[in-house]
């Protein structure tokens, strides 16, 4: 099986890895460079647990070939917190927006993509933004509340 070198930035840092034919970005990130924050849920692009940002846009990393990462800017939850947690992370904690936590990284990345392009989303915008992310535990309402609470100009949800 042919191995190809790919280079990309992951959460601002330059990374290089070999990818194999047919390997998806999810596996490249997890096993190739050791970023375990994107999760495997379905491998079919239906659950959103593997959502990462590529050049600022949310993508399902299970449906993106590893080699397509060449030269791209990739963001995952591993880069969300700086010296302090990202406001979305704080909001998910205070709103009880996670139970088992497995969908949470994907939810956070979809939410970040939304707020990056639309700092003042409506509730409908939030619902739309996470419509590709399945959660089996919380029933979505706490997640929606958490994201809205971070949106600019909103003191509370």
């Amino acid at each position, binding site marked *: 099986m042919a191995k190809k070198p790919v280079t990309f930035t992951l959460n601002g840092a330059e990374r290089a890895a070999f990818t194999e034919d047919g390997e998806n970005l999810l596996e490249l990130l997890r096993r190739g460079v050791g970023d375990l*924050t994107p*999760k*495997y849920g379905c491998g079919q692009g239906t659950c959103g647990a593997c959502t990462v940002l590529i050049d600022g846009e949310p993508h399902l990393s299970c449906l993106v070939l590893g080699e397509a990462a060449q030269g791209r800017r990739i963001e995952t939850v591993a880069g969300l917190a700086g010296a302090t*947690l990202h406001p979305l992370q704080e909001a998910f904690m*205070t709103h009880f927006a996670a139970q088992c*936590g497995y969908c949470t990284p994907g939810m956070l990345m979809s939410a970040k993509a939304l707020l990056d392009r639309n700092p003042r989303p409506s509730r409908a915008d939030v619902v739309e933004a996470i419509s590709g992310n399945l959660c*089996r535990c919380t029933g979505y309402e706490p997640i929606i509340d958490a994201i809205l609470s971070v949106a600019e100009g909103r003191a509370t949800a």
Partner: protein
Amino acid sequence: MKQGQFELRKEFFADERPENLNEIGKPTRRQDILGHVTGRSPYFDDHLFEGLLHIRCARSPHHHARIRRIDTSEAERMPGVVRVLTGRDVPRNLNTLLSLLDFGIDDEPLLADRKVGYKGEPVAAVIATSEAAARDAVKKVRVDWEVLPHVLDVEEAIKPGAPVVLDIYPGNKFIYHGKYDHQKLRYGDVEAAFRSADHVVEGRYQMSPIEQAPIETCGAIAAPEVNDRYVCYTSTQALFFSLGTAAKVLTTPSSRLHFVGGTVGGGFGGKVDSIHEPIAVLGAMLTGRPCKFAWDREEEMQVGAPRGAERWYIKDGVMRDGRIVARRFTGYFDSGAYTRLSSYAIIKGVGHLPGPYTIPNVYADVYCVFTNRTPATAMRGFGITGVDFAIEAHMDKVAETVGMNPIELRILNAYRDGDMKAHRRVAKNCALIECCQVVAEKAGIALSPAARAASSLHGGGGERAQIPAYTATDGAGRVEGYEGGNYARKGGAKRPDGPAPIAVPPTAPRQPAYAAPMPTYAAPAPAPQPAHRPEPPPPAAAPGPARSGPMRFSSLSGFRRR
């Protein structure tokens, strides 16, 4: 409303809970939430191993078939394949999930070697250097099948001449205590009550199997440790269950198995079956390398054990004023091709009948039926949820028949404190009436003054606390020929034949009158009453003396005892 609910709690549970509760209404952070929002919570798959091997199973395309031969030679020659496991590689290739509690007979192979009982049953496990290589090689496992007739419907399965799913249960029914082919509940005389009832209302209710659908699929990674042990990271919901199961089927002391779990990406019951851990550990044992065995989403949905489907027939005898005087159940629980947890689910379910209603005559026969469908297992209230659907749908049908508001019908028939339940235990801390009143208020449904005035605290006991003077019993469903591997038999003296004794009702301190009445029934010479408190489930499960099994059944079935 919050204040009102709090007052309700103080009224009903004053003797149970301390007064210094201060958590409700106050946000509390989960102890594991920081890991979740930073993506650092260590799920089983978040452990990296150099040289990790991947396991995938070759599966039966048939519902029911005999295996004449499994040829793995071509699969073994595929690129990246390290080894192919079959049933021959499993040291003890027969298990039943609850055997750790000494409940049930071993019936299910880890990798089928003689016969498959459901579509998707694993027959071989390919271990390869990548998941893609394992996937390719699985297609090269050749199985010579002798396709057998199959049965997918619970009532078809128990007809004479139906295909036999499991040879050890030729009637396709799980055998309880080595001698009963169903669980029974008998209280009063339903047939007499049907004759005197104003209406008889019958219904048939069918539930589907339901997949738990956790976002994280089930899986495990096992690797050799340097101290002759094997570490196993697993998604299991039941770590010690999985540990014990792996130790049993691999015939290895559990001290050699270092299991790490606790971080579960959603379970909902579907992660108790302990299938992945033994296969992953076996792979690590036989290859000397770390092995990962996880379902993909398709496997999770297709071969992951669901909540079992249930079929219920309910017949009620009802008076014109809405009082239900008799309720008869016949239930069929679809266990699929193996027992797993279904036999236990039925014990829970029968312990729940007839629902939260005081009905003076109750009868139930509930069967754990084997079919050629995916085995069923735990899921959120399994054994209860299905029959509750049937009961509550039937309550609406009864309400319609007598022309009564369905909420009022429930209030009229609800358990009240001091009532005798069909299990001959006294109802206490009842709150269904109050729940119904709140629901009616929230839904804007006007209740009659009587329904509004009703209370779980009043009107119970008295005649409603009396065990029926006569209970119609029968010996139907007794079978012979089941001896070993059954918790009820273990260490217990054999009881004389005849209907099981009806247990003495427990003493209820708040209602001393209930301790008095002893049941009278037509049974010939029942066995002496055991001195200790009755065990759920009732009649059929009355225990023999001096049981030395590993666990009291009340613990197994989760009943709280105070």
